[in-house]
């Protein structure tokens, strides 16, 4: 499917894609295009996004920018015209004549089109279909996955792994499903119990044991240089989970809401030198300074509502300002809605389909908008151990993006296109779910606008067109 307007003429200013050029040029077009019984070299996959403002997720916004991806990775973002080998922008080359796959998302048909990084939902349920090892259980045709993509989510934490919403790419029967691309990270969080006095004591014992081992180990590393016979300190009795937390291999994840608990977590984290991840964190705003000093990261739901304990003299209970106050003290915030699944029961605005709505409530409480976007992109990506691949739009990262029809955080904004690993996996107008709501002009569902030639001032339109082109050239 090529979404491409003939009037959009891109001069072929080369972008460094030269190595791919000879191979692609030499590819025989028609011979092996038909039935392909033998396994072919997979064709290179290109994806071009044009015609929208690109919000990279790092602060920059490229007005009417362009993005190019090759084989699922972003290779260029900018204002340059990309040369895709063999792509002639002046004419539509039939797909079967190309030695590569090409998808062009021309977002100029989307009013107020914006490109954002695909969202990362820290925790969801039911979006991937099965359970256990998602490589072997994912339902790539799952309705909930599609609704997740339609809501702008491209990566999610589920159980103890991080997975992509890898839909079976429509009309890709010739290409094998990318099973190995489903799970992109294993366990990055170690759940730590922080409830009863006994569990707190036990955690302290485990931590001090692990810390003692690490000290002994470091001493041994020094001493063994002198005395080669010296034995490595024994790991027996050392808690492996806490060892991995202290070594920075995994993050300790607590579930806590009350200020005493939160304060206790901050203290123990500072004492042993690790950064705690705290789910819930309802009264975090009361002890935000302590949490900030401990380098805590919080996973919270801004709409959580709980009255303060009436017996408590100090401030307490939930606050709409929780995220904002924590953020201002340096606590990184990841946001999830109260319901982690897709809820089609009819109560709208409270489930995983409405991540941006939930973020809106944090902003209502004073969280800056960029921190709001980070709370559903970069921060959860970091917590899930995949920030090197997803969360922002950067050259070298995975091409997971969404094209929206406006400000992501506005209540009327819809995702028009979703791309995962450089594949267009969702187009609002191609699925029944939302196609009827404010359909795009290129949709069959779009209302008919009677065309009156008398209303079009021909001269003006031409001059407008010219100036646009001039501007484009200047850039």
């Amino acid at each position: 499917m090529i979404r491409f307007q003939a009037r959009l003429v891109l001069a072929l200013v080369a972008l460094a894609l030269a190595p791919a050029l000879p191979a692609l040029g030499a590819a025989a077009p028609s011979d092996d295009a038909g039935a392909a019984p033998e396994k072919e070299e997979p064709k290179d996959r290109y994806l071009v996004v044009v015609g929208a403002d690109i919000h990279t997720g790092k602060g920059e916004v490229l007005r009417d920018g362009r993005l190019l991806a090759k084989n699922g990775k972003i290779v260029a973002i900018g204002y340059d015209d990309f040369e895709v080998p063999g792509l002639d922008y002046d004419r539509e080359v039939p797909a079967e004549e190309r030695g590569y796959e090409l998808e062009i998302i021309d977002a100029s048909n989307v009013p107020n089109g914006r490109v954002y990084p695909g969202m990362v939902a820290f925790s969801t349920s039911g979006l991937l279909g099965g359970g256990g090892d998602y490589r072997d259980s994912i339902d790539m045709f799952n309705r909930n996955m599609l609704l997740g993509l339609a809501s702008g989510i491209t990566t999610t934490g589920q159980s103890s792994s991080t997975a992509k919403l890898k839909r079976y790419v429509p009309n890709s029967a010739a290409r094998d499903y990318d099973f190995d691309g489903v799970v992109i990270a294993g366990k990055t969080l170690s759940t730590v119990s922080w409830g009863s006095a006994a569990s707190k004591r036990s955690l302290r014992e485990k931590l001090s044991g692990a810390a003692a081992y690490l000290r002994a180990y470091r001493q041994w590393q020094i001493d063994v240089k002198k005395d080669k016979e010296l034995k490595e300190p024994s790991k027996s009795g050392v808690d492996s989970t806490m060892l991995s937390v202290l070594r920075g291999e995994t993050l300790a994840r607590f579930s806590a809401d009350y200020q005493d608990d939160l304060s206790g977590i901050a203290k123990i984290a500072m004492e042993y030198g690790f950064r705690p991840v705290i789910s819930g964190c309802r009264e975090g705003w009361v002890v935000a300074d302590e949490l900030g000093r401990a380098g805590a990261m919080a996973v919270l739901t801004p709409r959580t509502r709980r009255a303060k304990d009436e017996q408590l003299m100090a401030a307490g209970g939930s606050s709409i300002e929780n995220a904002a106050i924590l953020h201002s003290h340096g606590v990184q915030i990841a946001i999830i809605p109260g319901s982690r699944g897709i809820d089609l029961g009819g109560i709208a605005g409270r489930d995983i389909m409405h991540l941006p709505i939930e973020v809106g409530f944090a902003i209502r409480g004073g969280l800056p908008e960029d921190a709001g976007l980070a709370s559903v992109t970069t921060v959860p990506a970091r917590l899930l151990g995949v920030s090197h691949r997803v969360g922002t739009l950067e050259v070298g990262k995975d091409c997971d993006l969404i094209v929206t029809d406006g400000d992501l955080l506005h209540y009327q904004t819809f995702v028009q296109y979703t791309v995962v690993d450089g594949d267009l996996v969702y187009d609002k107008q191609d699925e029944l779910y939302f196609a009827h709501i404010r359909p795009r002009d290129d949709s069959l569902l779009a209302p008919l606008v009677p065309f009156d030639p008398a209303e079009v001032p021909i001269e003006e339109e031409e001059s407008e067109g010219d100036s646009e082109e001039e501007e484009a050239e200047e850039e």
Partner: protein
Amino acid sequence: MVALAGLLCAVISASPAEGLAIQCAKILTMNAEDAVHAPGMVWIEDGAISYVGGVRDVPAGWTLLEEDEMWAMPGMVDLHTHIHSGGFADTNDMVHSVNPELRAHPALRPANRLVKLACSSGVTCLLGIPGSGTNMSGFGVLYKTKTSGSFEEVVWKRVGGLKVAQDSNPARRAGTEGWGNCRASMGWTLEDVAGKALGARREGRKDPALESLEKVMHRELPVLIHTAGSEGVVNTARMWSRKYDTQCVISHGSFDGWKAASAIAEWGVPVNHGPRTMDYFSSRNGRLNGTGAEYDTAGVPLFSLNTDSSVIPQEEFFLQGAMTARLGGDPYRMLRALTIHPAESFGLAERVGSLEVGKDADVVLYDGDPLDTRTRVIRVWIDGEMQFDREASQAFF
């Protein structure tokens, strides 16, 4: 919750002697002409609105509040709520299947925690109704969400309107004589008691248990009817609007109820929609249908929204408008569905629902589009008294 004690520490109110003038960037009056004054002014005198329009000179001695970044809108009105007792408690008597003699107002806890939250979100007038476990659970209480005040100070009408439930919940067979587990028997149960009320008035019999119901049957009190699904909606409209000429409002109208929208639009029956505003499973057209948007565009008169609080927290009433606008509705129409439409459909428009001269001074100041989740409610006046001030009381919503 942030301490509510500090809520009233800096009350800016209109004392009887001098008026209060609020000047802001945009005034959404919600009047019949859909007038928007940008910039504009609202004058408050003696708890009522004395002027709405463009900016003009304020009489000497008045307090002028210049909020040049703010939007003003009438306080929101929710007809289907259950927070008057401070929770879900004390809402439904489950002994008999019809209770025309019961009233919700004895359960009211003025200015309870949930009501304060509602106020802080710009909701100023609520109909607190009994539950829907039985076919006729009693009469709701109409009250303002003042953050302090006695029963007398917050209650507008002790008997605000009748609550009837004609589908789904009461079909669970509540009540000793509750054999009404299907539409036919629920219909009979309701017609039976309605007939008794009509008969009592006709024959001049005095029956205290039927006194209020008699008023409903003669359009002297409104009735809110819990119903759902396309068949339920038509069934309800047929009984309460065609068979009995009552001042009825269909509440919920969930699931595929919207498919009956054009039929009940023709009959002129208002719909008070919520807490569900979306349907996928019942409509079976493969879409996530914005059911509220469907009702409104089909021409249902005075389409309004509700929360069924605490099914949806009362303070998220505005979100019902936002979600309906998201799923296909017009955002401005949704603001009407949160203010003047519920007021008019329940006969309350003479005092609330819009910013017009002579009406109660229930005014809400926002720092932007009232439907946007990011927008904050800055100040709320009820009957001319400031009941919420974000700066003074800390934001708790």
